[in-house]
């Protein structure tokens, strides 16, 4: 019993903090609520510390419902980093919109717990509970500015499509349970590999699960919610939503595709390749025509999902450890650079009359040299230009795809990454090479938290680009140890 609880100490810490925040929030005067964010960050730091102490443990808990291993640890650490940066980005923005409430931090922490549970579960029931915890928290977060029409619209859209997606996943899982009789990943996988399951039902289950995950991570043709949700949500929430649920979705997708459906790769590789190509195509071309930066980043994140799916399809091949490790690294790099890019938008809208339009960027290089400078770093990283994390991630991912014998697919990926370079560059063009029609009005709201969050993301992006070894090794070790390659 004690052993079981050991595995979820980080989650328990976050849940306890979330509840404490909810309890003391009404007791605080309005300007006393600032401290709640620090409480959340502190909880994440403690959870991170306990994760660090658990890093060499490897066991399953709660009757094989969850497993603690390097793979889970890697993702838990990533989710905590995401949560910390997201909370740091939020405070000032919420205060300026008069929505600085404790609920916000509780929801972020609960969503993080949901992601952790999703990743560590090795049982489809537990997984689904985690998924819903994350999803419900993020629906509310999307609508957190409830006096803002767009925010409410975002929340509703996210909720409706998300509910559909959950249903698909659930139906797929039910079918898997129906044909195999197990809820444990390993056992389902073994039964399927043994070949005693009806093929057509299995195919339907695979399609449903892929469709459900497609919704969650924002792959084409299940992507339509993403631009509206990212545009409408409060910017720090969009930052969080664009990386957290995606990372969790891919963490589970890797497990699903290898542990449960590894033996059936012939069935799904083609499907995933097709989705990956269409996703890159739609993401890259639609991002070209966006004039709103949050929508542009939404389509850009769809394009990035396309690259990640390339690696998922490569993980159907024999040398899968490599492909999955590249996804893990990519997710870490992507999290930092996307949080950073959204973070700069938060910074600009806090400090000026910035309205998230591309045109508002004109002349920013002069007016806000620091913000423009680090936005440049994030854009170059998103475009995959060295020496940034985005470059190494893309390099490693293409390497995995080439290694799996899919060099032509890597070429397709490279082609779309050329297209995508154009819209990332355009941000830089506007900031440094265009004259503004009228300068932004400054309001000069300084925030230490925000600067710290941006600084962390920027340093992380450069550090991962220049010295990727520690994270790379962690990702590879995690897979070698867990998935038994």
């Amino acid at each position, binding site marked *: 019993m004690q052993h079981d609880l050991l595995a979820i100490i980080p989650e328990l810490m976050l849940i306890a903090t979330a509840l404490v925040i909810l309890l003391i929030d009404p007791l605080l005067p309005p300007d006393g609520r600032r401290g709640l964010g620090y409480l959340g960050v502190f909880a994440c730091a403690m959870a991170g510390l306990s994760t660090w102490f658990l890093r060499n443990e490897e066991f399953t808990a709660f009757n094989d419902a969850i497993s603690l291993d390097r793979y889970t640890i890697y993702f838990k650490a990533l989710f905590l980093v995401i949560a910390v940066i997201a909370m740091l980005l939020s405070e000032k923005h919420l205060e300026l919109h008069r929505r600085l409430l404790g609920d916000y931090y509780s929801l972020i922490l609960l969503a993080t717990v949901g992601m952790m549970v999703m990743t560590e579960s090795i049982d489809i029931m537990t997984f689904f509970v985690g998924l819903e915890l994350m999803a419900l928290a993020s629906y509310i977060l999307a609508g957190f500015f409830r006096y803002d029409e767009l925010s409410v619209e975002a929340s509703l859209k996210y909720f409706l499509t998300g509910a559909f997606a959950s249903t698909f996943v659930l139906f797929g899982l039910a079918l898997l349970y129906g044909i195999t009789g197990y809820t444990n990943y390993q056992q389902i996988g073994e039964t399927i590999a043994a070949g005693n399951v009806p093929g057509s039902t299995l195919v339907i289950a695979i399609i449903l699960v892929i469709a459900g995950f497609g919704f969650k991570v924002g792959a084409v043709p299940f992507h339509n919610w993403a631009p509206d949700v990212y545009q409408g949500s409060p910017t720090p929430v969009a930052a969080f939503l664009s990386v957290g649920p995606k990372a969790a979705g891919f963490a589970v997708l890797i497990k699903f595709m290898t542990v449960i459906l590894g033996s059936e790769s012939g069935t799904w590789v083609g499907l995933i390749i097709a989705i990956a190509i269409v996703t890159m195509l739609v993401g890259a071309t639609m991002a070209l025509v966006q004039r709103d930066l949050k929508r542009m980043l939404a389509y850009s994140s769809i394009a990035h999902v396309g690259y990640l799916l390339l690696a998922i399809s490569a993980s159907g091949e*024999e*040398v899968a450890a490599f492909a999955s490790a590249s996804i893990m690294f990519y997710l870490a790099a992507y999290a930092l650079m996307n949080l950073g890019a959204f973070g700069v938008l938060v910074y600009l809208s806090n400090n000026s009359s910035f309205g998230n339009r591309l045109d508002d960027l004109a002349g920013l290089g*002069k007016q806000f040299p620091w913000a423009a400078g680090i936005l440049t770093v994030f854009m*170059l990283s998103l475009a995959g*230009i*060295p*020496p940034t994390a985005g*470059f190494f991630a893309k*390099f*490693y991912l*293409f*390497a995995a795809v*080439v*290694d799996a014998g899919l*060099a032509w697919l*890597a*070429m397709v990926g*490279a*082609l779309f*990454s*050329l297209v995508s*370079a*154009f819209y990332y*560059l355009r941000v*830089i*063009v506007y900031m*440094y*090479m*265009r004259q503004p029609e009228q300068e932004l009005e400054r309001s000069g709201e300084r925030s230490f938290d925000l600067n710290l969050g941006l600084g962390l993301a920027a340093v992380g992006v450069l550090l991962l680009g220049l*010295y*990727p*070894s520690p994270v*790379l*090794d962690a990702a*590879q070790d995690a897979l070698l140890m867990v998935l038994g390659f």
Partner: protein
Amino acid sequence: MFTYQEQIGFPILTVLIFLPTLGGLLMLLMRGRPRWYKTTAMATTAATFILSLVMLARFDSLSANMQFTEKLTWVERLGISYHLGVDGISVLLILLTTLLSAIVIPASWNYVKERELIFFAMFLFLETGMLGVFCARDLFLFYIFWEVMLIPMYFIIGVWGGPRRIYAAIKFFLFTLAGSLLMLIAIVAIAYIAREGPFSTPVFDMDLLESAVFSSSVQYWAFLAFFIAFAVKVPMWPVHTWLPDAHVEAPMAGSVILAGVLLKVGGYGILRICLPFFPDAAVAYTPYIIILSLIAIIYGAIVSLAQKDLKKLVAYSSVSHMGFVTAGIFAMSVIGIEGAIMVMFSHGLLTGALFLMVGYLYERLHTREIASMGGLAAPFPVMAAFLLFFVLGSLGLPGLSGFVGEFLSLLGVFAYSKVLGAIAATGIILAAAYLLWMFLRVMFLKLRKDEWFELSDFSLREIGTLAPLAALAVWVGVYPNTFLQLIEPPATQLAEKMAPYVAEGSGTLHDIFASLGGF
């Protein structure tokens, strides 16, 4: 573990590469003090140049081996290391880089009005990228430096360029990136093919890759991918279209570095990677590449004849001159390769100088249109003398540097095919035509405006930036051995490596397509 060859007592290549970055970062602390940061920029580039001379002094020019090598494991799991080393070819191009970088700083002393600090810092970061490319002995590192060159140049064109600068900058960036992405995939592919077993680490080390043997279909594909990346940089016809735009819009110093060094990394890459890694494919593609080079030579020259803009004329002449580089390399003889390298070096000196001249003219007249000039020799006699000197050098007058390389390169092509050699030689005649005609229209004929007499002729600063280039041009032209002996061992080694493949005969177009399809 960091190891380096004990040749000079300290890891000189690392210092050489990162000294400019250090200077650039230092400059960023001097916001608002123009005199300070300009002096820092100049001191840094001068120190880098002196350091490269020190390296040259300790360089063993009789050896074809990599020297001053340094190695540090970087990403162990992927077999990536920070591995540097230089041979004669690199040393020559490094000298060119450090010299031109040291010249463009004083040359653009008063050229830009806005955001000067970042302008000068960009050139220092650019220098790091260029030097890194010439020193890298690990393909991953090579690629990093290759891309690091791209960003400062993109900003230099896009921020401080002419009216259509944004178009030119994006075109430059996307053309180069398209090539580099192809190269990236090829790098990954050969690194994984060259490893020992399916689970061992990939091989990015160029020393190891040089001795690896790839199957012919891998060679055909990988050669093509690398070659396209390098051909964009050279630039070869038909992927040269970014060059005129980039040159016309770039500020003077940007053009000098672009023509002087950035085009050379293309030729350098072909010599360093395409030939030694993929000898079979190189031989098979030779006829087509030589024909493309000839088209570049003739087309570049003819288009130059028709230019109205002085800068565009020099830009297209670069396309023509660089044709001699690719033609010489693919002649695959010692003479051809040496010729190609000498053309690169001399083109860096002379075209760099020509772009400086165009810039200085523009600073005075505020136009680059040839038709609006005329009779400038009267108000600017010193400038006319310099221009005549560089024009003569550029058109291949014996006794100046342009002649040496083009002659050797032509000898190489002649040995390959007399007809093609004859066609290539017409490029030199055309060069004389467009350059002399340009000189005539700019400097002689009737003086258009009398108020030009009120403008000053060259200042000491301007003469100081051109004089070293002129002196080197004479040195190379009169006594090329100083430079030839530097590049002879590596050129010979490369030609010897290629000889058996050339003798074996090349694949036909049919073979190429069969292999490409069979991958």
